[in-house]
């Protein structure tokens, strides 16, 4: 996957993030919208990525977790809590995915996991949400996405 397509994936993941939690819906409708977003990411990966590369196996999941992370910035209630959860999901996907890939001889990127772990701890210190801090966190996540 080239850096350009990686950046494109980042933009694609940012797209649904802003209106994910806007209108009140039922649990079933939330589930379906999540599923469709995930499906979009999978289709994107399938058509742009090299499916022989094992790293692609969890690429759409990483996109989804990234999207969920960013979407928590729009929340008003319990933002820190959901931020932690979303980053936890991202960490989970990367950690266990890499663990299984390590058995196939794929290199493990420890740095992204460490950054995500510190992100989970870090957001505990930002209880209020001024715009600057939200932007900072967003840049932190985009940085993790783009660089690692």
């Amino acid at each position: 996957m080239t850096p350009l397509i990686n950046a494109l994936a980042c933009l694609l993941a940012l797209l649904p993030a802003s209106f994910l939690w806007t209108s009140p819906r039922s649990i079933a409708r939330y589930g379906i919208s999540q599923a469709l977003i995930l499906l979009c990411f999978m289709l994107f990966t399938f058509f742009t990525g090299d499916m022989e590369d094992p790293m692609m196996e969890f690429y759409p999941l990483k996109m989804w977790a990234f999207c969920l992370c960013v979407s928590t910035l729009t929340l008003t209630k319990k933002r820190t809590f959901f931020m932690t959860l979303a980053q936890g999901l991202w960490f989970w996907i990367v950690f266990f995915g890499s663990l299984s890939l390590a058995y196939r001889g794929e290199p493990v990127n420890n740095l992204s996991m460490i950054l995500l772990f510190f992100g989970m701890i870090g957001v505990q210190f930002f209880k209020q949400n001024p715009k600057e801090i939200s932007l900072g966190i967003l840049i932190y996540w985009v940085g993790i996405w783009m660089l690692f």
Partner: protein
Amino acid sequence: MVKKLFIVGLILLIPGIWTLFQALSIGPASWALDQSLFWGTPIVNFVFWIGLAHAGTFLSAILLILEVRFQKRISLVAELSTIAAILVASIFPLIHLGIVSRFYFLIPFFNERNIFANFSSPLIWDFVAIFVYLCISIFYIVTHLLSLKHASLLKTRKVLAWILFPLVLWVHTIVSLDFAVTTNNLWQGAYFPIYFILGALFSGLALVVFLLEVQKRRVRKIEELLIAASWLLFVFWIWEFFQKGVWHFEVVFFGFVIVQLLWIPVLRKQKAFRLFVSFSVLISMWLERYVLIIPLDIEWLPVDYGWFALGIGLFLSVFFGLYLLIQKHNPLVFYVSAEESNEKYSRKVLWGILAGAVVFALLYFALNYPLDTSVPLMNWIPVLFPLFSLFAGLSFFALGVYSVVPKKQFFLVSGLLVLILGGAFGAFYAGGDTNLGVESKIISVERVSKNNRPVKDLWASRCASCHGLKGEGNRKFIYEFYPEIQDLTLERLNSQGEDSLTQVVLKGRAFMNPFEGRVSEPEARALIRYMYQLAEEKE
């Protein structure tokens, strides 16, 4: 209804126990396996039942954390189903072992022979995670029952829910890694952890729908969750098709298409239809595991069918048995919940215990890692987190129960548990008797060997006790007991000649015993030549 299902469970246990008996006495040959399919139907059932064990915690602990309103009404049923399902699930991998009595080899605790479990194997992670999950689930349900009387325990419950939240996901993630780390390309997939968690929650929710119907209750939110999960899982099935080109129509039909019928209000109101959907989901999820683990057509044996009786029978009898027991004690227990309580742990206690748990896990790591550094560091984490949870969960639970239960009772029960724990540690430390294997030979007597033994060794073992290592004679022995011994001078040896001396060795003379049968002729000749050599050295 409850009573009837309990009896159905007991009746199903009859063929179930027969299955168990067959499986244990014949071994893995009693179910469908061959020399290329090593994991069969017990593992399918294990993954299925451990998946069912997740809904309980999900609906109770995770929704408690997320502060979802309908959680309270169904939590006890859900927790009970977790306990029963873990008990069922843990049976299958145990039976599946080739030598069941060696199951304790999988416990990552150093035994007396200095051998340790292999931390690269996901089965070790599995063992630890499921054991800890069972322990904390039991703590959780006990605090639930106690909290009805003692509202102060609600804070313990909340902390335990926080511990269970990652733990329950951890368990099924680890189960998925059992497959994802292999070289089998149908099982490989870095998306497996999330895929397996979703599958587990999906089947678990369907089970809870059924268990609530038994109580003549209905929670609409769970049906919605069922639809949401079916969609997410459907997307994963599409992804699996992209990855491996595998598509299982029957799984999608039972697990996705039929669930969508819940959108139709007329059907949704029917109790029978809701049960139909719940069973359809269970069938779909069982099939999903089946087609994953056993990709080829195999011929089933009676025991393969028997697992259903065993699993369902044991689940129903344990679940409804406990249900009846709890209901007898307090008939309203399933419909009431504890009063609200805003009590919280003091920061000192909370952080103290958590720090203790971290220290416990790190200590375990520090003590064991240096002994086997060949295992990558990353492979330790799947065990360290459950150990952390065990310590923290046990501490919070003990602290909470200690504060509300009579002291005598508390120490009696914990004394019993400590007794078992100490016994297990002691047994590990002692190690047990050596397995002598099939034949334990009788130590033999040396015979004439076909190969000529090195002459120096032969002299040392056969001659030196009298003649001495250098032919000088063993003074301590000879001069005390025997009248005389010939001095092995070169002159004397030459006067006898090699042939006759060889005959002396074989046939004996005067005080010397015959060595025929213990020393071969070439060996005897070699000994004589060695004697010459020794004599030459002396002069």
